[in-house]
């Protein structure tokens, strides 16, 4: 789960990491009021769950509260990479003397949290990794031992010479490491971590991703979820305990198993079609789940045919077929549906589908080709 910059900054501030003061505005008037309260020049920053906000014009400097109001008028409602800006963070602007990068990421290869620092902050870290990798310093932390202060200090020395700044940066790194475990993070980034005219070290941006699997024990963090920033169908699917990702194509897919669902989408592309979605309906033959899945898929007006691909191992194919029959009684899509059920009791399943004139195919390749054929005919 992603959280906004302002929410991440709240978590940082609670832990004692220096962040500039600021508040959220949802209207230009609110932006004005916050700037007035802060009584100094501010940054007006779009709060959306994508990178590249600056390049898209969503991060602007405002000399006065009036300027903040004007900028907020422009930025609120802006579309940045497909997401609408509904909130802006109005925060005091800093004089930037230097920009560094500090981040912690879950590294799958070492199965450890890896701390990364770079004196080349303020730009995409992937760009730095590609062009000047020698400017990135990494430390894989032993999760059993934890982060020792001397290790954090050695990393801080890569960023600053001044011992006061080194000490502040060391403290920030130690605190970030604590936060990483405390809120089950998979990624934390401060980019840039700056030094200002007063030689202070301040985090002027904050990014924090939380492991979805840990939300059950992070109720306060779960409250930070911004449903407005998510695709509505994906929200609905999550609430129905279905795994769904909306794509741009026209072949709706319903498959049991994430890997098989991905492979089905791949095959649709391979045969010249375009998948409309990823949907893993899991191992159940429950008609209610099928109904919900069909409704979510067909809520996308681009969908011209639906492909149902089920491999029944322990889940029995005839159970799934009966589930589909039951589901159709409640909700029958008005676009073509083609089914492929393989595995346990597949033959019985095919008979059940035949009884409601639902076309079924035997092989994965055939069902994909059929779905594309039916969609093209629509």
């Amino acid at each position, binding site marked *: 789960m992603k959280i906004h910059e302002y929410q991440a900054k709240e978590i940082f501030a609670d832990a004692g990491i220096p962040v500039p003061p600021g508040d959220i505005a949802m209207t230009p008037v609110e932006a004005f009021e916050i700037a007035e309260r802060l009584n100094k020049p501010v940054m007006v920053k779009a709060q959306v769950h994508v990178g590249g906000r600056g390049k898209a014009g969503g991060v602007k400097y405002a000399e006065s509260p009036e300027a903040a109001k004007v900028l907020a008028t422009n930025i609120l409602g802006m579309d940045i990479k497909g997401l609408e800006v509904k909130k802006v963070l109005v925060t005091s602007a800093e004089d930037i003397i230097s920009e560094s990068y500090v981040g912690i990421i*879950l590294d*799958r*290869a070492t*199965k*450890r*949290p890896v701390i990364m620092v770079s004196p080349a902050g303020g730009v995409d870290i*992937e760009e730095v990794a590609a062009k000047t990798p020698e400017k990135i310093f990494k430390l894989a932390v*032993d*999760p*059993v031992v934890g982060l020792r202060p001397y290790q954090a200090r050695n990393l801080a020395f890569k960023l600053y010479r001044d011992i006061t700044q080194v000490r502040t940066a060391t403290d920030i790194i130690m605190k970030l490491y604590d936060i*990483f*475990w405390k809120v*089950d*993070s*998979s990624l934390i980034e401060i980019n840039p971590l700056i030094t200002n005219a007063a030689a202070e070290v301040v985090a002027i941006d904050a990014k924090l991703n939380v*492991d*979805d*699997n*840990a939300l*059950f*024990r992070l109720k306060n963090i779960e409250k930070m979820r911004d449903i407005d920033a998510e695709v509505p169908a994906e929200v609905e699917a999550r609430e129905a305990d279905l*795994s769904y*990702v909306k*794509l741009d194509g026209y072949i709706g897919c319903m*498959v*049991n*198993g*994430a*890997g*098989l*669902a*991905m*492979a089905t*989408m*791949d*095959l*649709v*592309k*391979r045969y010249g079609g375009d*998948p409309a979605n*990823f949907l*893993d309906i899991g191992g159940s033959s429950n008609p209610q789940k099928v109904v919900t899945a069909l409704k979510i898929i067909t809520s996308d007006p681009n969908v011209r045919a639906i492909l149902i691909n089920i*491999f029944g*191992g*322990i889940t029995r194919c005839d159970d799934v077929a009966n589930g589909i029959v039951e589901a159709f009684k409640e909700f029958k899509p008005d676009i073509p549906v083609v089914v492929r059920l*393989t*595995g*346990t009791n597949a033959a019985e399943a095919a008979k059940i589908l035949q009884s409601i004139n639902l076309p079924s195919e035997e*092989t*994965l*390749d055939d069902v994909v080709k059929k779905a594309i054929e039916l969609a093209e005919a629509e």
Partner: protein
Amino acid sequence: MSIFINKKSKVVVQGITGRDGSFHAEQMKAYGTNVVAGVTPGKAGSKVAGIPVFNSVAEAVKETKANTSVIYVPPAFAVDAIYEAVGAGIKTVVCITEGVPANDMMKVYPIVKEAGARLIGPNCPGLISVDQSKVGIMPGNIVKKGGVGVVSRSGTLTYEAIWALTCAGMGQTTCIGIGGDQVIGTNFIDCLEAFEADKATKAIVMIGEIGGSDEEDAAKFIKKNVTKPVVSFIAGQAAPPGKRMGHAGAIISGGSGTAEDKIKALKKAGVPVAGSPTELPILLNELIAKRKEADKTKKAKAGAKTKTAAKKKTASKKK
């Protein structure tokens, strides 16, 4: 023969009285697995499908000498179940549970390693060593005894591939699902190494997906250390960047972990990559035939060299 589990595996089912635990304990037993015990705190003395239940893994091990465990426990308690199994001396732990927090996994992994145990999963269907033992939820009716080792990050996609192999008459030694999460106990290389060392495994099928760099690491390992034929399928070529595709570990982040990169790395290492899971048996047969031809040519050349050398010797002797 097989990898990681066999006839001698004595299995304890953690979470045996739950809905999944009880159902699958019975299924495993029906397959022929030696399920010796179950654990649910508070249910000691009861039985599930004739299997005695204990309050703790330690008690189960003491009474039954269980050496393998399978975990059907909800995400909030699954990691604790792993610690418990390893602490009780279990050497092979299979965690089926989906939804285990990744940071918990980072903490338990070094503990498992230090205990000299093997963790498979989490978020996996487990494994089957054909006609010997099934630990997990893989359907027993799709496998067939033979010489192919199958390793995969998926569930039903694996079954699709196994079924294709079975239908093509290419039976399997062990089929293992290593799981769909970012931090897992056993990676591709662990399985490839074991398959390479297993005499009964003559060929390997590897099924990967987007996210992480396990397949790329495996490709390097195959080039250096695997002599047996390997073919692969990678799911997720149509996946968009930055979105989690069902599995916690199936995500393209920061431009890395794409299916394209994995396919490139595997092809570079001499591993043919199928365009669909159903193509795998065909691809494998082609590779085996190609290697046989190459072998024949090699032997013929070597034979010719020996003949030439012998002729030269005779000629020089004559001189």
